[in-house]
């Protein structure tokens, strides 16, 4: 039985497990139907031209983990941003871990999707926002059908969340192969600010496939700052679907740092429903071995006077493959749009590949849209200069690559994350120098 059949047939069992009477029931049933007709995406689809799921779909994934597992804080401390105080929503094999987490209902809601889906007091929010940003493509539909757990964050009007929120998913390898489908809903009301850090981490060498959907709603003048840290092991694959709906004058930014994982696909979608919106999409990708990373972004400019900035940097070593598929749509109404898109890549090895496709679709005339994309090497002159100054070649190369990626790091607003990423980059490049230049 292939994974699709398995998922479709487990849906009934899943529906019996969760409360059938809810509003979400209808949405789930609709979603599984969509998935049943569309199935997993194939390379024949334009959006999946360079990424094949065939290999990772061959594993015999358990859809529901059979037993709960526990992990100690000291074992996973290194995967968390632990040097500052944060709210934490931590899941182990898809199940909420109360002893590792730190949630709150004090003025803001930082809690669980399962609670939000079942408790009547959240009903209004769920009806207004759940599945209202996600599209009905096959993978998002699949997630919708099985949505039961994840993070639920609701920041009411005029709140400045005092510390960042971490959402972390651990998988312990209890199952030989596990499929996880976390579902996050984040609603940030007028004038509120929030910072979120998301990470998926597998603790063993057993296969994991995560198909995650995150919906973010940024209301008037809200500021959402989202960081995705992807540094998983060679057996873990991640399909991340993020949908961000922005209202007027809101600012949303997503930084994606990809340093590992077997196959990583980031579907990042921004929809601008209002004027004077600012959207930022940035990413650094440094991978090697047989890793495959695919950044698939969409910025939909619907109304006038908005801006979007995209900047993705990639360094590819070993047999790694990088894909960047960026799309900017500017609707007829969206005059005075300012959209910028850049994708710069360095191929380090002869076996690495980069496929990039920065697209513009423009229907308005009074706009400033540009995209640039490069594939190149490190500057030999710069390398030579550093070598003459006594910097060993390896370090010199690392310095140059760090400088290459630095553009993206500059806009990171949490200093601890910046420090962490800097360290990760150093490790990734195999050098032991502090980059706090």
């Amino acid at each position: 039985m292939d994974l699709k059949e398995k998922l479709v047939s487990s849906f009934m069992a899943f529906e019996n497990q969760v409360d059938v009477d809810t509003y979400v029931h209808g949405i789930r049933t609709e979603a599984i139907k969509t998935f049943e007709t569309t199935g997993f995406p194939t390379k024949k689809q334009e959006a999946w031209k360079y990424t094949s799921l065939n290999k990772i779909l061959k594993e015999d994934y358990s859809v529901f983990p059979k037993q709960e597992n526990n992990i100690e804080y000291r074992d996973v401390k290194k995967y968390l941003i632990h040097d500052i105080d944060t709210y934490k929503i931590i899941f182990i094999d898809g199940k909420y871990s109360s002893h590792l987490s730190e949630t709150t209902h004090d003025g803001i809601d930082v809690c669980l999707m399962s609670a939000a889906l079942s408790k009547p007091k959240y009903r209004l929010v769920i009806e207004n926002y759940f599945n209202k940003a996600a599209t009905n493509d096959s993978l998002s539909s699949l997630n919708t059908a099985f949505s039961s757990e994840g993070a639920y964050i609701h920041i009411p009007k005029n709140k400045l969340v005092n510390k960042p929120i971490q959402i972390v998913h651990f998988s312990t390898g209890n199952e030989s192969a596990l499929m996880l489908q976390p579902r996050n809903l984040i609603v940030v009301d007028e004038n509120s600010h929030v910072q979120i850090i998301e990470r998926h981490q597998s603790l063993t060498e057993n296969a994991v496939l995560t198909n995650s959907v995150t919906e973010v709603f940024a209301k008037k003048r809200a500021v959402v700052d989202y960081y995705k840290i992807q540094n998983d092991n060679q057996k873990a694959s991640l399909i991340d679907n993020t949908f961000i709906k922005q209202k007027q004058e809101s600012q949303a930014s997503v930084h994606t740092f990809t340093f590992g994982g077997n196959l990583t696909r980031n579907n990042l979608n921004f929809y601008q429903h209002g004027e004077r919106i600012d959207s930022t999409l940035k990413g650094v990708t440094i991978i090697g071995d047989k890793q495959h990373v695919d950044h698939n972004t969409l910025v939909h400019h619907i109304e006038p006077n908005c801006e979007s900035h995209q900047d993705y940097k990639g360094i590819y070593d070993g047999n790694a493959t990088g894909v960047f598929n960026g799309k900017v749509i500017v609707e007829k109404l969206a005059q005075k749009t300012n959209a910028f898109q850049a994708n710069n890549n360095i191929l380090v090895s002869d076996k690495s590949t980069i496929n990039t496709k920065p697209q513009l679709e423009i229907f308005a005339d009074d706009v400033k849209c540009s995209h640039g994309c490069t594939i190149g090497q490190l500057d030999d002159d710069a390398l030579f200069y550093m070598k003459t100054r006594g910097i060993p070649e390896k370090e010199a190369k690392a310095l140059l690559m760090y400088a290459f990626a630095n553009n993206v790091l500059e806009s990171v607003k949490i200093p601890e994350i910046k420090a962490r990423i800097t360290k990760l980059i150093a490790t990734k490049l195999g050098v032991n120098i502090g980059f706090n230049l």
Partner: protein
Amino acid sequence: MSKYTEDDLREELKTKEYEYGFYTDIASDTFPVGLNEDIVKAISKKKEEPEWMTEWRLEAFKIWKEMIEPEWANVNYKKPDFQAISYYSAPNSKPKYDSLDEVDPELLATFEKLGISLDEQKKLAGVAMDVVVDSVSVATTFKKTLAEKGIIFMSISEAIKEHPELVKKYIGTVVPQKDNFYAALNSAVFSDGSFCYIPKGVRCPMELSTYFRINQAGTGQFERTLVIADEGSYVSYLEGCTAPSRDENQLHAAVVELIALDNAEIKYSTVQNWYPGNDLGKGGVYNFVTKRGLCETNAKISWTQVETGSAVTWKYPSCVLKGDNSIGEFYSIAVTNNYQQADTGTKMIHLGKNTKSTIISKGISAGKSQNSYRGLVQINSRADNARNFSQCDSLLMGNECGAHTFPYIEAKNKSAQIEHEATTSKIGEDQIFYCNQRGIDTEKAIALIVNGFSKDVLNKLPMEFAVEAQKLLEISLEGSVG
């Protein structure tokens, strides 16, 4: 010389046909509509083709039957019914009109603006002409010069008969029958086209142009061009014509194959101005073309195109840079107005070492048109030190049109250097204002700015062509000032 009458003209044309002779039977004979194996065989027979050619066509037809019409392009149109087309009609030698007065005045006005001489106007509009002699004599001297150099330039039907070894060796090597839906269709039913062979080390002394040939025999809707530049040779080839072509054939599916052997250089320039349909988007030609060139070691192929016509254009002149140190270039201006749709671009396939490619694409959309650039730059794992520079700029006029960019960049070699940039902008009000205060009216100012925008490409066209193309841009955008 006594005055020419219509009958003289007809006589003249008849002899001319005979001279270069493919159609002995001039009376317009059209095949029944539809397409099947018998039709393919009949076309081949009609053209007195050798058996290998018939087989080749049939093979293509078999492949075509299995294929489905592609839908990936960013264009919308009513699909042609392939069984409702007549696949063979001998060129009608009878003039369409007796005098210029019968010709659509709009067309004449355009001729006027392009600065085309009265005689040429008549020729282009299909009016009976009394100056054919001149034209023939030009063509004859032309042929003589070429023959002295050993250059073969003739219709492909003639070439199949006269130089079968060359045609057989090269046809379908760059664009195989199974390449795509329209290439397969073309391979099965191509009516005619041009064949050009430049021998080793010869530099073609003049710009070869299909212009002369087209006047000898209408090439029909399925044109096939094969240009072979042997080692160390050079040729500059012009296709099309700046004057608007009114053609009843709605579907045009041409195939152009260029082969540049070691150290050879081919420069291929196109100006396309098929009927784009009226202001409301009714009618117009569908132009689905497959153009591809193959570069051997140190060879260079350069495509320059100015696309202003057709209701739907679907065209990607490509270069396969097979040999080391080979160079591919693509310069394009695509203008769309009213309801026109263009999905055009290029493919640069880098296979050899030290290969270079340059892409400059300028899209100008006005009215309610849609203009897309779609390009592929592929660096193979063995293509060390490959270099590509791409630039595609779009200019939008009015807020009902669209400009789209779909660049595909695939690199498998670490020494590759690729740059791609694209911008979209409109004509700045301050630019217009500046021109206005210097006494240049808005329409002229726009023409000026558009010319500046397209200059990079216009510069690559052969001189006479460039002047005409420049005027053509002005005309195409006329009335689009909002």
